Structure formats: C-alpha cells, structure tokens
C-alpha cells in the first residue's frame, strides 16, 4: 500500500472516530414517563448495540453494568403486582397519571423526544437513585420488560420526587458521565390536607456532578401544568452549586430546539413554544407533549472519580418534562361573558315584557245613576 493511501486511510479512520465521538455525545440518555408504543417507530435500542461504539472507543469503567455515581446502599425495591405508570388512551394521547402514586420510567436514548429509541436489553438491574424532599429513598431497580428497560416506582406521599440514572464511561483519558434525571409528581387536585406549595418545591441533589433543576412557579401546586407560552427557568447545578457557562439545550416533541448558556447564577430560561397545530376537530387540550432538556459541561482539568484520576471530564445531564396547549388557544372570555350577559339581558327583558303584558291597566268604573 502506498504511503498516500495509508495517509488517506488514517484520515478516514480519524473522521469516522470523530463522527462516532459526536454520536456518543449527541445520543443522550434520558428517562421518560411516556410508555413505548405497542407497535411504532420508536424501536427498542439494544443497549449492547448502542454501547458498541463506546466499547470501540473505550471500555466503560465497570464492565458489568453502569453504576450510580452517587453510591447509596442498594436495597431491594418493593415489588408490586398492580400495573403502574402512564397509560395511552385509544386516541394515542398520553393519559395524565399525576393522581397515581405508582409511576414507571423508561430509559431512552436520543436527543429528540419523539424519535428517541427505548433502550432495550443489556443493562438490566441498573439502579435509579431516588430522592424526595425529605431525603434519599430506596433505589429503584431498572428491569427489562418487553425488551424495554424500565423501572416501577412507588411514591408514598404527595409531592415531587427525583429519579437519577447515572452511567459512567471513559474515552481515552476523559471521563464521560451521563445523568438521566426524571422529576416525578404524585399529586391530586383534591388533596386539600396537603400543603401543596410546601411539597411542590424542586429537589436539589448535592451529590450530583451535574444536574438540571427546574425552578417551580411561585404558586406551583401539585396540579400546576406547564403550558405553551410559559417561561420556564432551569438552574444548572454541580454538587448543589450553580454552574456558569454550561450549555443547555431544549428540544420539544416536534423537534424544535434551542440552546443557551447558563448565566452567573446558573439560571437559563426558555419560553415554551406553541408547536401543536391540528385541525379543530382533532384538537385535544390534554395533549401532553414532552420536552427534553440537556446540559453539557466540559471540565478540562483533572478530575478524580472513585479514586481514579482522569485528564478531563465531560458531564451530560438530561431532564424531561411535559407541557400542554395554552388555555389561550381554546378558551374565550369574550364568548363566555357574551353568552352569560346575553341570557341575563334577554331573560330580564323577557320577564319585564311578560309582566307588563299581564298587567291589567287601571280602569275607572263609572256608575250611571240614571240608568
């Protein structure tokens, strides 16, 4: 083989390797509450296949399975016979299951919520670190069911809970940590005994190297929904402290994407766009759409993890959320008040006229004495 051909081949390999590296960072892991379609485009992604490229580049730190970065005492997750998690109704809409204390999350891979594949076999028995406002909960175990890796989680009390799945890999001298986070909510629209504002606070994990925290609304309760047009604030945190200059991107269900850099206080804001356009007859106000937040942080300095020193580190944290169409899209006060006022005015006038018609005018009766 000539020297020029060798150089060309080497260059080609370099390009392929770089592309693979890009794929590794682009194909993020995230936790989804949306169940996989029974037959659809979102085919399961075999973790072994998905990791194949990684193995080519560098073997994971622990070969058997990726481990939770935050070591908590592993404990057996409660087993439940009843089905938990979100359901999809006959029209394909995701049914809201906020009322239920039994949740299910699926591990997905990809940067677009709609097309991300459900991670399949190969990563059984992974642990989800669970955190509530009161502190850590027993870890939940990821299990393979119908070729999809998922976990059934019981949320004992009303309020928010965080679930974290952490995967750690090494690319050369670089540590790559992926943290998939899900913010789960057990709420009720009728639980007046619960101090909603107290239990609806966001939870911050001070043990996470990178975390996206959604700032809750000032009066956020257990049934507050994010709707199109809302401005949603996130804070990028590392070990409980705000991170400046992290790249944060949002991708909506229909693929709209935007990237921003976290400010001095770690905050980054996104306005939820309106991207649900459908004929009126098909419009559903409970149309639940998923958005995916991704934060990337590159640490060029030396990093120590589990006693091993790495030349640099790259952290990726994901957080999925959901949003609904804005009531402004389908509610009209003008029409509502118009109907109410019309009935009041029309009814009032009708009653007035009815009463007037029945009023017998005064008639003077004169008696003719001569008659």
């Amino acid at each position, binding site marked *: 083989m000539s020297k020029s051909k060798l150089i060309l081949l080497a260059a080609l390999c370099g390009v392929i390797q770089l592309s693979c590296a890009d794929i590794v960072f682009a194909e993020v892991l995230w936790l989804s509450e949306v169940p996989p379609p029974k037959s659809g485009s979102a085919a399961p992604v075999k973790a072994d296949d998905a990791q194949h490229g990684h193995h080519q580049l560098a073997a994971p730190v622990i070969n058997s399975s990726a481990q939770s970065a935050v070591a908590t005492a592993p404990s057996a997750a409660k087993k439940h016979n009843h089905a938990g998690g979100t359901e999809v109704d006959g029209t394909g809409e995701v049914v809201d299951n906020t009322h239920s204390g039994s949740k299910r999350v699926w591990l997905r891979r990809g940067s677009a919520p709609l097309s991300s594949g459900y991670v399949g076999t190969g990563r059984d028995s992974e642990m989800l670190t669970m955190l509530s406002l009161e502190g850590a909960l027993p870890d939940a175990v990821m299990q393979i069911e119908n070729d999809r890796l998922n976990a059934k989680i019981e949320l004992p009390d009303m309020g928010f809970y965080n679930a974290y799945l952490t995967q750690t890999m090494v690319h050369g001298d670089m540590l790559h940590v992926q943290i998939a986070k899900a913010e789960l909510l057990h709420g009720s629209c009728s639980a007046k005994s619960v101090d909603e504002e107290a239990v609806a606070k966001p939870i911050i994990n001070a043990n996470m190297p990178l975390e996206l925290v959604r700032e809750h609304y000032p009066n956020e309760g257990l049934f507050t929904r994010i709707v199109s047009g809302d401005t949603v604030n996130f804070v990028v945190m590392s070990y409980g402290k705000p991170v400046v200059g992290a790249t944060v991107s949002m991708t909506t269900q229909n693929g709209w994407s935007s990237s921003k850099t976290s400010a001095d206080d770690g905050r980054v804001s996104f306005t939820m766009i309106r991207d649900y356009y459908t004929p009126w007859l098909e*419009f559903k106000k409970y149309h639940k759409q998923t958005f995916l937040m991704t934060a990337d942080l590159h640490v060029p300095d030396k990093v120590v993890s589990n006693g091993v020193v790495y030349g640099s580190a790259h952290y990726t944290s994901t957080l999925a959320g959901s949003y609904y169409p804005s009531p402004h899209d389908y*509610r009209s006060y003008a029409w509502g008040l118009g109907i*109410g006022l019309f009935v009041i005015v029309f009814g009032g006038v009708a009653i007035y006229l009815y009463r007037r018609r029945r009023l017998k005018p005064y008639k003077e009766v004169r008696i003719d004495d001569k008659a």
Partner: protein
Amino acid sequence: MTKLEAIRTAVNNVQFNRFRFWLQLFFFVLLVYGGFAAIDLGNNLPTFACGYNKEGRGGMCYLMPLQHQLAWSWQKLFSVAGLAVLSGFAIFYLWFIALNKGWCGFVCPLGTIQDWITSLRRWSGIRYSRYTWGQFKWLAQIKYVLLALMFIIPLGIGGGWFQKDMKSPFCMICPGRTVIPLFGGDFSQLSLDFSSKTNMIMTGLGLTVMGLFFVGSFVKKRFFCFYCPMSAFHYLLSKPALLRLRKDGSKCTRCGDCFRVCDQEIKDIADDVNKKEIMTDDCILCMKCVAACPEKGALKATFAGIPIFESTEEGFIKRMTKGHSDGI
C-alpha cells in the same frame, strides 16, 4: 319555668330570619373561604361547596367526585376500586343524615347567594314571581331528569358510550361552577371552552344556566333549588335523616302563612293535614314555615325525635312585630 323550658321558649321566640342569615353567612365563609384557613371538611359534602373554587373551598361537593368515579371504566368501577365509591358515598350519607335537607336551607353557598339576590330584589321594590300550579307540577320533574343524567352520562363514559369530555356533566352546567369561584377572585370559569365540540356545548350550557340563575333568582326565590339534582338525591335518601320537619294537622287552621313564606311554593305544607312528615322533595328545610306558623306545635323541627324549634303564638307575634317584613 324550668331551665330547659326557658331555653325552649327562647329558641322558639328567636328572630329566625336574622339567626338564619348569620348561620348561612357562617357556612358560606366556611365553605367558600375556609380553605385559606386550612379548613378541609373533605370531598363528600352534601352541598355545593364547589370543587372549582380551588383555593378557598373548605370542603367539596360530593357530586364532583361521584361523577368522576362513575366515569371510571366499568372494569375498574366494578372491581375492588369500586369500594372507593362506596366509602365516598358512606361519608356523604353520614354528613347528610345529620342535617337532612337542612344542608340546602342553611349550608348551601349557592342557596345563600340566591337568598342574597332575593334580598336585593326586595330592597329594589320589585315583586317576586310564582309558578302556576300546572307549571309547578311539571317543572318539579326536571331535577329528577338531571339526577338521572348525572348518573347515566358518567356511567356511559365508563362504558365507552360517551366522550370523556362529558365527565362531570352536571358540574359543567351547575351555576356553582361559574358563580362560587367568583367569590375567590377566580374568573376562569366564565370562559367558553372551544377545545372540542362537547366542551364548547357544555361550557356554553353552563354559562347559559349561569345567566338564567341570576335572572331567575332575582325574580323567583330559590330559583335554582327547584331544579337541583342534589335536592332530589337528598329526598331519595332522607328516610333515616335526623333533622325532620313534622306537622300536627289537628292544630293546623290552614291559614296559609306557611305556604306564603315558602320559597319553594310547596302547597302541601298548608293543605296536607294528614301527613306527620311534611318534608317534600322540593323542601329545603329552611324552617321559615315553622317561624311563620302562629299555632303552637302545629309545625316543628325535630332532631333525632327531639323537638328543637316549634311554632308558638308567642314566637309568631314577636317575629311579626319586630321584623314584620324580613324574609316574607
């Protein structure tokens, strides 16, 4: 006079309309603003403590969770989960048994609002309307139709016959949904929902009923109570209730005072001298008839068989001379 007799005399001579006004105001504040003071009487109250009044409600009307539960899939409804429906009904029934239809006459916030609108009409000097006997007879059936639909539609949703948008059909047309949240500063229920044909029709109907509620209540005392399915539901369950309205026909002179003060225009209260249990399906147990009766013991309210308020000549005269115009 023993102490007990003295208390009984004082109760029987009470300025009843004033007492009722303050009691109604107390319950109104409790059920419409109680939530701000962390008061929660649960989700099974037999009165219109509207669930749409999210922040302020001190409890919730049972019809809302009942309709939600009846709209479950039949598989779920007739499974162990159905026990939740039964337990909810049991709590509702326990609440109801205590006050019977006194929940309508003294507690219901929507009833209280109607009484306030009546006071406004009286203050403005406009006369009130009454139904003819023919109108009364057929209009009185509407509440049973609404009650039947309130069960049939959610059950039909569970069976897949109707759209889920029709969930809580009565709440959608109940004036409580549109009117009561206004007192908490929530105007969101005054909008028309265009998200689907069903929602558009139901919210349109709700706003139409709200308009009729204001016009009707202005010219007709307790206008909506006549059509209220909760009232019909109460009546069907009222047999074992503790608070009761009794009549002693032998003491009745058929003067008609009780009929004249009755907001619900119930003729039987004056005409029927045979029945001891005089409460009819339209009655709201407001006890205005007892207060207006001049015959000792002809009408009385009893609680678990014990008379708590009865008509006396002395009480009648005191009420007539002191507040001759209020409430009549």
